């Protein structure tokens, strides 16, 4: 009888200790981004919410260390080194410079690095092979690569008279540079020409946009931080030229482009979160291929009826039928999912 009591007590103590230990060591996740930006902030939120929904309560099971490099590339390295000194268990790196810095600092270590909002992880050298992760060591993540030709097709669908497409971009931004080149490559097969104009700082965006007036049948802007920060001037130029304007980020439809198409970055964050969950459950990054958002969910299209009215543009019915929502009378209206 005594022996039974003793083993029960020992068992209870062990259980108690186990519970205490399990509760005493939350997982540390370092989240870093290159700038604060609605899209990047949405990624961060989406990832955190995904983890919370899966049972990792913030503060209890997981502790987040958040940092923004505020546009300074050199600081990105310091932030990653900081994470390392604080012994984080995993890094979520949002956007290219921060991802590269984290990858460098944690190279050769066992700390997993999960990246998000990277257009071309293979080209940037973040991973050796996006599809076959066996040589990617401790790095994997989510890519928001878009098929630019789909955007161009959408522009073509807006009106048969659209042949020349004006593109304002910052050649100093790596994803913008890449997407611009891809657009130039795919345009000819669609019977379109790209007229690109460079603006290396947001101060130069207005002039660049204005230089396109009269030379193009439509305006186009990709996910370019520099241009987006001065988007009003591009909208103004497009209105002055009385031509449609496509922005590659659907949440930006409220800024005035005729039509906006892009990923839901909160959703993107949730996808990143699911990759993190896979890692936390024991899978190694070298076992997880890069997830392309386009394969998980498609881009959303929003048409801006207010903007169209300003330039007396009428949408083809087909475009409206396919849109995921409208911007009208100053507010976003989402299409209700139709019953199947």
């Amino acid at each position, binding site marked *: 009888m005594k022996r039974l009591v003793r083993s029960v007590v020992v068992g209870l103590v062990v259980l108690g200790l186990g519970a205490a230990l399990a509760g005493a060591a939350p997982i540390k996740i370092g989240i870093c981004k290159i700038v604060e930006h609605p899209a990047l902030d949405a990624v961060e939120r989406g990832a955190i919410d995904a983890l919370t929904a899966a049972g990792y309560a913030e503060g209890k099971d997981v502790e987040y260390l958040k940092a923004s490099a505020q546009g300074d590339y050199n600081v990105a*390295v310091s932030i990653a080194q900081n994470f390392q000194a604080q012994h984080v268990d995993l890094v979520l790196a949002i956007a290219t410079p921060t991802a590269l*810095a984290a990858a460098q600092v944690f190279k050769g270590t066992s700390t997993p690095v999960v990246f998000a909002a990277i257009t071309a992880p293979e080209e940037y050298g973040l991973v050796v092979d996006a599809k076959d992760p066996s040589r990617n060591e401790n790095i994997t993540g989510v890519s928001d690569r878009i098929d630019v030709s789909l955007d161009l097709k959408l522009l073509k669908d807006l009106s048969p008279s659209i042949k020349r497409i004006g593109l304002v971009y910052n050649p*100093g931004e790596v994803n913008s540079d890449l997407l611009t080149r891809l657009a130039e490559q795919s345009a000819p097969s669609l019977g379109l020409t790209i007229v690109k104009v460079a603006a290396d700082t947001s101060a130069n965006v207005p002039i660049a946009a204005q230089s396109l007036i009269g030379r193009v049948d439509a305006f186009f802007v990709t996910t370019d931080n520099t241009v987006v920060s001065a988007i009003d001037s591009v909208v103004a130029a497009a209105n002055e030229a009385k031509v449609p304007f496509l922005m590659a980020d659907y949440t930006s439809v409220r800024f005035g482009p005729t039509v906006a198409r892009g990923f839901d970055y909160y959703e993107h964050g949730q996808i990143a979160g699911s990759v993190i969950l896979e890692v936390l459950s024991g899978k190694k990054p070298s076992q997880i291929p890069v997830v392309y958002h386009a394969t998980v969910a498609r881009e959303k299209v929003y048409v801006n009826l207010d903007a169209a009215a300003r330039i007396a543009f009428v949408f083809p019915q087909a475009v409206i039928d396919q849109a995921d929502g409208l911007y009208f009378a100053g507010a976003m209206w989402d299409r209700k999912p139709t019953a199947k």
Partner: protein
Amino acid sequence: MVALLMHAAEQGLVYGIAALGVFISYRILRFPDLTVDGSFVTGAAIASSLVVLQGLDPVVALAVAFAVGSLAGVLTGLLNTRLGITDLLAGVLSMIMLYSINLRIMGRPNISLLRAETITRSIAALFAPLGSAAVLVFLAGIVLFIKLVLDFFFKTEVGLALRATGDNEAMITAQGVNTKTMKVAGLALSNGLVALSGGLVAHYSGFADVGMGIGTIVTGLAAVILGGSLIRSRRVGWMTASVLLGSLIYRIAVMFALRYGYVIGFQASDLKLVTSLLVIVALVVPALRDRLLRRPKPC
């Protein structure tokens, strides 16, 4: 904490080379040279594109980076001495030109060195027994070597003439020195060092980005002025040491601010503000001290 300090020391050393470059143009030549924001990236661009795209040995790539960086300095020097453009403006013009040139060199805005044979990777492999301290030891050796070479140079006839060009141009001209040539040579050396620093930083950080040079003049000046307020000697050996010390202190301060600053709501974007405040304090404190002790102010 030790790891943090080691990283801060590593950064203090690599950026310290750029600080030495700024020291030469700003302190020795009395030429405020803004070219460095551009030549820093030029060094990074060359050192990374040569390794990634041409497969060159990292040491060779860094040497070429130094050479091309000094050309940037020659450009600014010629703009100033031959075309009569003022020092500040000449530097700005060069910096702007370099932005386009750097993009051309890289072919794209960002080059990743993650899987390339960088100098830091070679060193870590060569000095494996030193473990994580290998890079620090290597950098310390390189920087010490550069410092000693500079110290020796400034004791030579040419080096002395260079110092005099900044100290009393009329006098040294009357002593037979072509100060135009001196300025161009000084700026070449200065920007060569800055470009070398940029190349090393690219290898160290694992990437080169066309925007990574912004603020080089500010952090360089911060190191020079911080160090100069701590070590007041006018002897060359001490002056170069003070620059490196200033760079180390600055990077340690940055590390601490990033690590613990969240307590007061500090963000990375506040760094530039803090740097300027540090520089102002470093400039004012010695002047205040002199005034309190009624010491004669040096020119």
